[in-house]
């Protein structure tokens, strides 16, 4: 057995230690669910810039990071935030105004790219995207690709099936592996060594984690090792992949964390409204991001009543009959 290395540390320290300017990163969750929002806001407050973000479908965290100017390069399948913003607003603006470099993929391609990184293979094949602009149109130029050793030389490659027509396919799209410098996820339960138990959908968190050199886990509940070891089949991530563990209750707020709280549709709407206007967005950030010094203070500002309104029902895992318009 491994000696029980305690990887717990304050979130501020984990972010400053592992999320460096120019780092290639990914964040867990999907659109408005289980984003590591406490870590996202900490990255913004620490003004860490020039980040290269890999995303399948990102929403709340993506738009905060782009809006704050932290992202310079983006590889992505989808930028949307549910009903509040079917297309993420700062994401769309950043592309329309040429503020970031970006490249489009599909959700399966991005998931497979993380999986290839996790497996240690250079690429994985899929039948997705043949004949599409996703395959034929590169977002990053050849010279950019050559100038950065962390970016693969080609976007995607259509290759003949090396096994003839085995599997009833003549050609496949080879999607190159991703190995982020750091991935940050938010989970329901973790122990001090970093073993994680996720409730509800895991999305592609497990592949993202296993593909990454460093992993920061924020958790609702920091539990004793024994609590996780009693039910090992409930644990998706063993500690060997994890670098730092930060205990941050409501660390996914304002996104949903299954079994704990729902997404805060009022907050997401407030963000979307502000994101449409430069001055309103600055005011939003001054109040809700830069105006607080920690996630704890942010939650105090949100208020107990709001957090109580989105509390999950223990049976269904979401806030039953919550007002969501």
């Amino acid at each position, binding site marked *: 057995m491994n000696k029980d290395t305690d990887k717990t540390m304050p979130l501020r320290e984990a972010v400053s230690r592992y999320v460096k300017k120019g780092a290639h990163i990914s964040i867990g969750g999907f659109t408005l669910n289980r984003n590591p929002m406490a870590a996202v806001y900490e990255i913004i407050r620490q003004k860490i810039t020039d980040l290269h973000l890999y995303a399948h479908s990102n929403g709340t965290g993506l738009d905060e990071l782009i809006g704050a100017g932290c992202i310079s390069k983006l590889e992505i399948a*989808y930028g949307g935030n549910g009903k509040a913003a079917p*297309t*993420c607003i700062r994401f*769309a603006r950043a592309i329309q105004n040429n503020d970031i470099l970006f490249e489009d993929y*599909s*959700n399966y391609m991005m998931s497979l790219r993380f999986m290839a990184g996790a497996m240690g293979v250079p690429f994985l094949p899929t039948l997705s995207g043949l*004949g599409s602009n996703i395959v034929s149109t590169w977002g990053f130029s050849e010279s950019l690709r050559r100038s950065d050793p962390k970016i693969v030389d080609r976007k995607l490659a259509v290759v003949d099936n090396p096994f003839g027509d085995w599997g009833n396919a003549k050609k496949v799209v080879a999607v190159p592996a991703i190995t982020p410098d750091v991935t940050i996820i938010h989970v329901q339960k973790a122990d001090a060594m970093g073993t994680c138990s996720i409730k509800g959908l895991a*999305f592609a968190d497990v592949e993202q984690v296993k593909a990454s050199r460093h992993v920061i886990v924020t958790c609702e509940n920091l539990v004793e090792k024994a609590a996780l070891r009693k039910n090992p089949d409930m644990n998706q991530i063993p500690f060997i992949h994890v670098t730092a563990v930060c205990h941050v209750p409501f660390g996914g707020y304002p996104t949903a964390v299954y079994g704990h709280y729902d997404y805060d549709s009022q907050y997401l709407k407030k963000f979307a409204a502000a994101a449409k206007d430069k001055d309103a967005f600055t005011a939003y950030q001054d109040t809700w991001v830069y105006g607080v010094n920690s996630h704890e203070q942010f939650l105090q500002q949100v208020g107990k009543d709001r957090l109580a309104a989105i509390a999950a029902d223990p049976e269904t895992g979401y806030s039953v009959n919550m007002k969501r318009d």
Partner: protein
Amino acid sequence: MDMSYTPKEIMTIMAAREIKNGDIVFSGTGISMLAAMAAKKINAPDSVIFFETGAMDSLLEEIPFAVADPRIMYWAAANASLTDAFATMQNRITGDRVIAILGAAQIDMYGNLNTTCIGDYFSPDIRFSGSGGGCDVASFVPRCIAFMQHEKRKFVNQLDYLTSPGQLSGNGSREAAGLRPGGVSVVVTNLGVMRFDPDTGRMYLDQYYPGTTPGMILENTQFYMDVSRAVQALPPTETELKILRENCDPQRLILGPAG
């Protein structure tokens, strides 16, 4: 019972009729989820709804507003992962049973879809969310329903970006590119229902709704479409409307104001 209906109501019913009993239905949110729910309650009780995020056969006691909504995680057969969900469609054992429902900003005469941008890719006039799982679904599954508003700027000669492959440039080019037969097979709009010629891969008018005409549909389409096979659609029946209104979306969260 008010037998008049809104465009959203007839679109939902027309899509629901495409779903067969036993189908595995890939669903997004909004009207596509409502169509999947309506089919399950009207004509395809053994159909199964699933989401790209990995939830299979969720209970859906409350209407989810996103495919990552915690409401899809409750009482599912399994909460799996993205890689699992797409493998379900790529693999032929389950993939051939899947019917998908997609939306798009633009569609062309071959059923190719654009959900990425309007204008130049690098400096677009409008940037949309992007493929998500749309490209994967259109690549993998044999039958896809596309939901569209029928407008000239959306039914275009040339897509600004081909996000999700349909018949590519027709006449077998989809298969020549290496894709299996499939992609968008039916387009449901506020005016009618379009399908694709099996030989040429080109869109033709299959049904126009009561109150619309093939001429109106052509006027709202940039490309020429064969209308010689078109018939008037059977309007929604009392049973269909009743189940849709009372059992699927009683709060009209997706259907919106009654007609």
